[in-house]
């Protein structure tokens, strides 16, 4: 009998614990992994996040006609693991503390970043976003920077030529 009384006492002492969500907001701790969001100003469109995303919530597409690259984030697939945040070289994509994602239109779950692409100096094909070229230039020695203006195929042709000159 005493066990039962003890439990009853404990239950009465605890009282009502149900929170009146959504009328009463729920606090989440620091470092909570919520909805990812891309900072359009910082994104260079390199696609590092696309490569690591486990559920393929992030994807990239290249529009050759408009010569733009799009990074597309679809929250409907997102598992909020934060791998994109780890991989991003410019801290453009970050997980926020927002978690209320229910919506009536699927379009609300998309974020699209559109970035202009640079065209190859030789063949004229769009090969990388302008921002990515500029970002890469920072870590490339000055004398080799002109090579960044070429697409990967033309670049390998040109550098092969340089190597053969060097041999002669």
């Amino acid at each position, binding site marked *: 009998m005493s*066990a039962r009384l003890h*439990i009853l006492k404990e239950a009465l002492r605890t009282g009502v614990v149900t929170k009146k969500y959504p009328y009463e907001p729920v606090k989440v701790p620091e*470092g909570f992994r919520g909805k990812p969001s891309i900072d359009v100003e910082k994104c260079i469109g390199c696609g590092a996040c696309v490569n690591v995303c486990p559920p393929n919530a992030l994807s990239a597409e290249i529009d050759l006609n408009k010569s733009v690259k799009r990074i597309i984030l679809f929250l409907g697939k997102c598992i909020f693991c934060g791998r994109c945040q780890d991989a991003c070289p410019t801290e453009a994509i970050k997980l926020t503390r927002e978690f209320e994602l229910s919506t009536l239109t699927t379009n609300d779950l998309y974020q699209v970043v559109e970035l202009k692409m640079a065209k190859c100096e030789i063949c004229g094909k769009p090969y990388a976003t302008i921002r990515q070229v500029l970002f890469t230039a920072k870590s490339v020695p000055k004398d080799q920077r002109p090579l960044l203006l070429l697409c990967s195929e033309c670049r390998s042709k040109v550098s092969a030529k340089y190597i053969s000159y060097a041999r002669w």
Partner: protein
Amino acid sequence: MHISTTKILDSLSKYGKIEKVHENTYFVEVSADKVREVSEILHWKLGGHFSVTVGSDERPINGYFKVYHVFLMDKQKLSIIVHVKVNPVVPKLPSITPIIPGANWHEREVHDFFGIFFEDHPNLERLILPYDWPKGVYPLRKDVSIRGLRSKLLKNNAESEGKRKAEEEGYIVPIGPYHPALHEPEYFELYVDGEKIVDAKYKGFHVHRGIEKVAEEKLTINQIPFIAERICGICGYTHNVAYCQAVENAAGIEVPLRAKYIRSILLEIERIHSHLLWFGVLFHLLGFDTGFMMTWLIREKIMDLAEVLTGNRKNYGLNLVGGVRRDINSEKIEFSLKTLNYVETKLRSVLDKMLKLKEVISRTKNIGLLNRNEAKKLSVVGPVARASGIDTDVRKHHPYAAYSEVEFKVPVYDEGDVYSRALVRYDEVFESINILKQLLKNIPKGNIMADEVKIPEYRKGLGLTEAPRGENVHLVITGRDNKIYRWRPRAPSYNNIPSTLIMLKGENLADAPAIIASIDPCFSCTDHLVIIDIKRNIKRRIRLKELARRRQC
């Protein structure tokens, strides 16, 4: 009686070549006619237990199918994997089920997925594949691609066996337990005589998602931990760790000690929340909803703790091959210790009293019996085995993560009833709090990710963890191009569910919910029961929750 490691290896060496893959893990290649003999020696004579059977299509590598039987020797801290080459033209192998009944499901799964025929298997029917699956299509074979599979299934669907059978025998598939949208559609059929259960049947795997195939074909090595975490909705992190350990073992990657500590900390947090959830479910099924709400209220503190440490209540997403992704700072350690102290005192005052209630004891004591011999035959694991007198705990016997650095006891009870399963979990919750306190106090400084993570191709690795429900085994064969060649996760409930059929026989119908729940089979209220009255031959279908409620009045 203690048998030394060398003696075991000596007795195995006459059957075939022994290859040490990583620490305490040996692969023994035997010929097909010796499989049964070796299995009998390992399971019944040398004190080990059968854990999992893994099939693998290695025709692109060496021209054969392979079957791996994994045995764990708890006393010697050894894992022995017996592997056999299977002829690709006539794939057949002697079954080990006549000797170890626990291998029943495992062999049927290999038969389903690879088309390997097991001779003398008592019941080599389909286990996982549905009835309308086309004949002769074995989904995990390497020459079957996901895309090809889809078109094959669409084409064959019209003339499928299942549909024809349904038309001939005139039954229709009920929505309910088979509906893929409901989570956990287990399906039990109970045959009753009045109130007594005479026999029971189980049909499962309605939501087998084929994630092994997806992982092998589409995902890269570091994407798989996240899908592994979603195998279970309650103890996902343990699968995540087991997978990472399997790959690390295969590649010989040394994980920094701090990362190991963090893994152990979260595994124990997961265990506490899972066990408290189980207590809540048990009390709820017994009609004791005060107990259900109070244990879940305390569990909420643990969920909050996980959220602070990892950024999410569940799905911690913390592991990669080689280490962990988030560090723990001193503030978080302090918060954890404070929460744990609170939880410990609360549990001591509440849970302790609840388990002493007359009603709880009378509904659980001497109910759902599973004796030691039956448990050994079916090779059950975790709390179910420990409540039946088998001392087995991967944390103790095959130490992984940081468990070799801490002191803890493994509770073992001999009664084998629902009550002792509750007591095992009760003791384990407090052991986990004890382990957590040690880990949090002694966590060393250092990196949380290995410096170099290189994964050579076609290496094998075994990853073991003690999930809240028991031993969890992942076998991995690494592949080319940052991919996994074969990955077989085996969750503990796979070994435990067959034991419910034994527990249910001869019990009262009213006790069925508690018995089924006592093995902690990731339980949900969507489960359905069919009750068949053998005298009046009436079939009724009701929800398990309703049964629990009805029997209270």
